[in-house]
């Protein structure tokens, strides 16, 4: 069964600093998603990564995928308070349509 491990679970960082969230998955997959969730809100789709070496950037967030290592990273550059949220990675295994989620990373950016 596909397992998705995300770390760290909690990340407290200062504004202006850089950090990376890691997402490892256990078996082959052809789709990896990053979502953001603010408290009490929907999960908002941030990135879809479909191929080895894929890199996508939006503002201060950059996501990458290494399918050989079964690893995706979400890099935060010069964090600002507005980035405080919970970030989830989710993997779409094989031919199925469901998503397998990581545990989520609660990011708190301190001024």
């Amino acid at each position: 069964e596909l397992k998705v491990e995300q770390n760290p679970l909690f990340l407290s960082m200062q504004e202006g600093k850089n950090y990376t969230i890691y997402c490892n998955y256990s078996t082959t997959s052809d789709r990896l998603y990053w979502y953001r969730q603010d408290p009490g809100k929907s999960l908002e789709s941030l990135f879809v990564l479909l191929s080895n070496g894929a890199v996508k950037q939006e503002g201060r967030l950059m996501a990458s995928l290494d399918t050989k290592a079964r690893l995706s990273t979400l890099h935060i550059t010069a964090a600002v308070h507005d980035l405080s949220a919970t970030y989830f990675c989710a993997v779409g295994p094989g031919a199925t349509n469901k998503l397998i989620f990581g545990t989520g990373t609660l990011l708190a950016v301190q001024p």
Partner: protein
Amino acid sequence: EAGVTQFPSHSVIEKGQTVTLRCDPISGHDNLYWYRRVMGKEIKFLLHFVKESKQDESGMPNNRFLAERTGGTYSTLKVQPAELEDSGVYFCASSQAPRETQYFGPGTRLLVL
């Protein structure tokens, strides 16, 4: 364009009672998914509809859970009778086609006392 909506936003019921959750997907999205997050655990898949048909219900925990999508529009998820371990947040998502990005609703927070 309206996003995925869910009703109610919160529900508090006693063990043994019945609760029905509703999800309205984005208009035109044939694919509808249910997920849930139990306290402290990952978000887990429950089932997937394509229009009114159940495509995959491998995540449904037991026969106390019944999902329907009559007419292929909105969906309901009924829990009968509810147990304490059913407490959590139930998310609905929809996509235009299978394996495309799933758009999530805000969730229904269910507490079973």
